[in-house]
């Protein structure tokens, strides 16, 4: 314990250096911007800024890059809430209730609670990284291909449970998402699958294209068919910018549970943070006494996933800092940044360069504090944006989206793909299909396929491996239980329908 305090004191003395505070602030600001601008992803930004960090001192460079990463988690929720466009895969769930809250005139409360939830989660998980970083590392190593596959199955079941409409439609969307995720090169042979000889498809369809199309463009098309008066995003009067006391009481439990789920799942390489946000939402809906309010603008539906994705963003540093193994694309770039600076990431960073290790951890807490200070006053600015007339706001969203999508790969084809998904998304909304399960399946699909094939290869084709490995079996059992729970209301459908009607 005294060790921990001494280490944290060292960390704060490094992080509080004026230069490092400056880098942390720049990182947090850039991250917020990246999160807010639709289409501009964290991976692309960190990749672009990597060369700039060449001339900086290593600690400052890494503090800045880390700031961009978790800053984007804060910013990503802003567009989700305001205009129903998820900036990152982790803020897809935030759209569900966040945007509904905005439509009900409660955008301010939604934005504030997501900042507060993220801050709380950031604080808790920073301490977690500091205290339990080393022992928790082992968890990531317990997960082999079979375990990952089962975790991904569980993730997809979450998507079924969180859907507010028909279970059958949710499953259909998941299968469609999985199918879409298979476009691209085969992992084992490199052969093109469903690429139709279009070179742009050989590396698969980008997440940004799908998300912008299904959420952003589809939303705009849907708005166009309404009368001019009802087009404005906010139909109701905008009520207070800050959450009420009742809001805080309602969401405190959700934030705490989201933080725990996010911290655990964030350690796992791959889709940890994405699964975490979906899991937190599903969990809240399950234990809520009013599950029918989810998807219609309930504050817990914003608080839980936002806390979870931020906690996961922090704890995903654990495998990087303790093992030197990057759990996702952004972390892989951080490894690159370290190597360029002559730091070899791995277990020895903690002992050989304690000022770097603890400085980064302390800066994460400072960064989170800065983000709250940056974001809370901005809430008012963002909410005013909603008052911008529709005819000005929506063309600018389209332009921003297109620039964002184009800039990822400098590819006009990507913009076309997003446009096609816009039409698909419009059709889906018209037929009461929810895009969120499809996007989740699209994100998790490649991980699921890879790990399924790896597990089967290692087991030499013996499928029982998923049931004989204890962690994998446990995850599959939870999936089964959740699926049963989701299907139960279908069996009692009559009663449910009566319930919904009486509520309206």
């Amino acid at each position, binding site marked *: 314990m005294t060790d921990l305090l001494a280490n944290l004191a060292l960390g704060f003395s490094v992080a509080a250096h004026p230069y490092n505070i400056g880098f942390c602030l720049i990182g947090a600001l850039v991250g917020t911007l990246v999160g807010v601008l639709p289409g501009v992803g964290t991976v692309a930004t960190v*990749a672009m800024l*990597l*060369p700039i960090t*060449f001339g900086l001192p290593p600690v400052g460079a890494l503090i800045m890059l880390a700031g961009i990463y978790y800053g984007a988690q804060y910013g990503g929720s802003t567009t989700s809430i305001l205009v129903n466009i998820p900036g990152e895969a982790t803020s897809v769930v935030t759209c569900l209730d966040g945007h509904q809250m905005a439509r009900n005139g409660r955008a301010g409360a939604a934005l504030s609670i997501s900042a507060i939830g993220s801050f709380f989660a950031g604080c808790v998980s920073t301490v977690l990284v500091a205290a339990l970083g080393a022992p928790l590392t082992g968890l*990531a*190593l*317990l*997960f*082999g*291909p079979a375990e990952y596959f089962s975790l991904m199955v569980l993730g997809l079941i979450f998507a079924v449970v969180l859907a507010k409409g028909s279970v059958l439609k949710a499953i259909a969307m998941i299968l469609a998402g999985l199918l879409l995720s298979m476009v691209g*090169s085969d*992992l*084992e*042979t*490199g*052969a*093109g699958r469903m690429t139709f000889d279009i*070179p742009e498809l*050989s*590396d698969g369809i980008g997440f940004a294209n799908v998300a912008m199309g299904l959420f952003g463009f589809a939303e705009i098309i849907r708005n166009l068919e309404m009368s001019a008066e009802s087009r404005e995003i906010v139909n109701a009067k905008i009520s207070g910018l800050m959450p009420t006391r009742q809001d805080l009481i309602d969401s405190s439990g959700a934030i705490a549970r989201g933080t725990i789920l996010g911290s655990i799942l964030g350690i796992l*390489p*791959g889709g940890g943070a994405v699964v975490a946000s979906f899991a937190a939402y599903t969990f809240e809906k399950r234990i809520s006494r009013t599950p029918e309010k989810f998807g219609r603008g309930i504050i817990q539906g914003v608080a839980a996933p936002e806390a979870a994705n931020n906690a996961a963003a922090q704890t995903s540093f654990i*495998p990087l800092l303790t*093992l*030197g*193994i*990057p759990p996702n694309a952004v972390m*892989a*770039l*951080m*490894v*690159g*940044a370290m*190597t*360029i600076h*002559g730091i*070899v*990431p*791995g*277990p*020895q960073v903690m002992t050989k360069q304690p000022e770097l290790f603890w400085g980064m951890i302390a800066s994460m807490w400072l960064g989170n504090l800065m983000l709250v200070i940056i974001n809370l006053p901005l809430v008012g600015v963002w909410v005013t944006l909603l008052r911008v007339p529709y005819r000005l706001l929506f063309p600018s969203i389209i332009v921003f989206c297109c620039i964002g999508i184009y800039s990822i790969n400098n590819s006009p084809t990507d913009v076309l793909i997003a446009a096609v998904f816009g039409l698909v998304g419009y059709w889906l909304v018209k037929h009461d299909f929810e895009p969120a399960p499809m996007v989740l399946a699209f994100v998790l699909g490649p991980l699921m396929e*890879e790990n399924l*094939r*790896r597990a089967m*290869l*290692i087991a*030499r084709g013996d499928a029982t491996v998923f049931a004989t490995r204890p962690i994998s079996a446990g995850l599959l059992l939870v999936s089964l239980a959740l699926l049963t729970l989701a299907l139960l209301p279908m069996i009692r459908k009559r009663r449910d329908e009566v319930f919904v009607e009486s509520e309206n």
Partner: protein
Amino acid sequence: MLRLLSRAAFGAFVFAAAAIPAAAQDFPKRNITMVVPFAAGGPTDIVARIVGEHMSKTLGQPVIVENVVGAGGTTGSVRAARAQNDGYAIIMGHMGTHAAAVSLYPNLAYKPDVDFEPIGMAAGTPILIVTRKDIPAKDLKEFVVWAKANNDKVNMAHAGVGSVSFTSCLLLNSILQTKPTQIPFNGTGPALNALVGSQVDYMCDQVVNLVPHVTGGTIKALAVGTAERNPALPDVPTSKEAGLAAFQVTAWNALFAPKGTPKPVVDKLADALDKALDDPAVRKRLLDLGSDIPGKTGRGPQALSTLVKSEIERWAPVLKGTTIN
């Protein structure tokens, strides 16, 4: 149609470039783009950024690294092959994109030995054979015996078809005459994770990725595929010392310009690269990463041209039967 247009534009440019060779004398007048066909932060990218930074000083113009990723580095290589051949667009190619790719991709849209003007070798990264820490073999000889005895049980990890870890491990397998089950991963990171977690048995990869794990004891290093021991891992024997002299492989990175780039321009670039490789600070950074820096005879366009030809021939039999469409 678009492609046709760009072809036409390209053709027009070739004509223009041929018409004014004088432009080569005051080269470079603006930024030079160095395409890296892999992600930022990877081994090739790091070498490119380190030498590119120093080349900027010699050339008096910034050398800007552009990462064009996809299809095992061939996407970026195609783009570089079709770029204007005025020396302002060059590429840091490597063993995969400019040698092994010929055997791997039957429909490859460029010929590494024909469509590029070689500038020179930059730096190579030696390949290391590593195993999970609890493997029942204490050195390479025991590993060979074990791998042959358990042929159908052995799992080899690699970072994707066509990656350096894939091609170099196929070389090892072809020498050993073994056929392990190949477990593909998306990049070195996930593959390494599985090796540290003992879910796979062995892999081959560039020294730079593996050093911390070998010194940390989370994986076991059997041999390095170079003539001399690596300064970053002085305790790891060379393949010759370990009894497998045939395993000689280095993931080389080298600079190329599009075909038809004027010779004076190529020479200027080669000279800048040569000066970068002589700079003590650059050398230190590269050596700290475990890289191999070519000696004077291994540098320059001529040496690279010979290397590319011999490497294409060398990989053909190893990769026979492994093609990517």
